């Protein structure tokens, strides 16, 4: 596939790895956070971490939309779908498996009789409302700046068509406040100091918001940000650019993903979003706590299509599973293997926390692609217990 395969080329990756090894300062350690779940996925899947010099460490950030969705918001959707048989609750596939209260998820609520459906796009949810005029179609919308414009578009279209049986539970969150929260919030420092030398900025989020929103952040916190594409070569080249900034004492916003990201982003998409959605005063993030001005709500002009207003839904915060370390993992202060449940009680088939649900979550990415790196090799015939996850040949 064009624009995909070239950026996965093995020979080029080897060259980049050699260049990095040559260029890093052996006398110091580098710790960079990839904010975005797409990068977490790419780093795990293509073994990028194995190609890095030993003194360069990558830390997974909170940029997986499913992982930062608090239990209380999922409870809200489940409660609505179970209480009102006329409701068809639809959402993106990853959302349906997020563990919520009482051992439920949207998928398990479906088994209990709720009408829950998976959609590929917001447009599919709107089309469902047109096809089912006797039902109430509620779209549970989640995601960062990438999935927000489609939600805004369908809301505007529902309003234009006066489609009375369609509404949205808006859970859209914003990237820049989350990055700020990682370095800034008192809650973050309670969990232990996090040493970070810079950030890999999101790929597709940045196609929409541009590189400009990170500029104030880089200057204020003296942390370099390099926006990178999602392919392994993009990530490695971005790490190289970060190393150069650190070594030369710069803290700037640089763009590795110039084939898709410009400084001002996509103005057409931004205009649609601000026409339909506005900033919430505050929003609770799983792992990061309540962050001011970090999420979007539906504007009053579109209230008839706002499910929270339409059905009088209330948000009740719910604490995470006691042993789940998602909170600390999302802040970068712990690794998936630090969690007692990782790989035993909690697996992608039976996720206990949200980081295990989506393939972009730190726990799921590590489980699927990276965990054997950390598992000591057992010699056959010793008394060591077999690894339950390992398939027998």
């Amino acid at each position, binding site marked *: 596939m064009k624009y995909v395969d070239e950026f996965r080329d093995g020979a080029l990756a080897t060259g980049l790895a050699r260049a990095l090894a040559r260029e890093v300062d052996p006398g110091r350690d580098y710790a960079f956070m990839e904010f975005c779940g797409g990068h977490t*996925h790419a780093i795990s899947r293509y073994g990028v971490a194995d190609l890095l010099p030993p003194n360069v460490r990558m830390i997974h950030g909170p940029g997986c939309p499913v992982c930062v969705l608090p239990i209380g918001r999922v409870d809200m959707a489940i409660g609505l779908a179970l209480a009102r048989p006329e409701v068809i609750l639809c959402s993106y596939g990853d959302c349906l498996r997020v563990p919520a209260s009482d051992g439920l998820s949207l998928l398990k609520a479906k088994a209990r009789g709720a009408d829950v459906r998976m959609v590929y796009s917001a447009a599919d949810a709107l089309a469902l409302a047109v096809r089912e005029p006797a039902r109430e179609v509620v779209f549970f919308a989640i995601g960062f700046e990438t999935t927000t414009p489609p939600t805004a578009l369908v809301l505007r279209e529902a309003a234009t068509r006066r489609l009375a049986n369609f509404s949205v539970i808006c859970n859209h969150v914003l990237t820049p406040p989350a990055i700020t929260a990682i370095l800034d919030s008192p809650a973050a420092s309670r969990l232990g100091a996090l040493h970070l030398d810079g950030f890999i900025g999101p790929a597709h989020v940045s196609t929409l918001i541009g590189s400009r929103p990170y500029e104030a952040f880089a200057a204020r916190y003296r942390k370099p940000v390099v926006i990178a594409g999602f392919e392994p070569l993009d990530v490695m080249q971005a790490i190289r650019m970060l190393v150069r900034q650190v070594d030369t004492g710069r803290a700037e916003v640089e763009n590795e993903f110039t084939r*898709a990201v410009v400084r001002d982003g996509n103005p057409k998409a931004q205009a649609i979003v601000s026409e339909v959605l506005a900033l919430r005063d505050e929003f609770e993030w799983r792992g990061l706590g309540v962050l001011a001005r970090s999420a979007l709500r539906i504007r009053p002009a579109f209230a008839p299509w706002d499910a929270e207003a339409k059905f009088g839904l209330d948000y009740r915060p719910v604490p995470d599973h006691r042993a789940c370390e998602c909170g600390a993992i999302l802040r970068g202060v712990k690794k998936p293997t630090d969690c007692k449940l990782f790989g035993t009680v909690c697996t992608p088939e039976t996720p206990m926390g949200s980081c295990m649900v989506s393939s972009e979550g730190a726990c799921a990415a590590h489980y699927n692609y990276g965990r054997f790196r950390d598992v000591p090799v057992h010699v056959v015939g010793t008394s060591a217990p077999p690894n339950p996850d390992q398939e027998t040949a």
Partner: protein
Amino acid sequence: MCLAIPARIVELLAGDQCRVELGGVRKEISLALVDGAAVGDYVIVHVGYALTRLDPEEAAQTLALIADAGIDPARALGGEHPALGAAR
């Protein structure tokens, strides 16, 4: 769910829709978020919507930069990295 892929526009359809091809698969997506996209352009597709157009010149420049990394300045006698030719 953040995963999004570059796909080539093969046909413009009514109502801001278009058909794209990726890896031999054709799919109808929305162009409502991008202006002026034409058949042959590559767009980044996410949850059924094109987010932006891909700039082929910038893509080539990034690849050239990455290929340059493979040249060890201590050993290089000049000339292009062989992998660059393959990537182009």
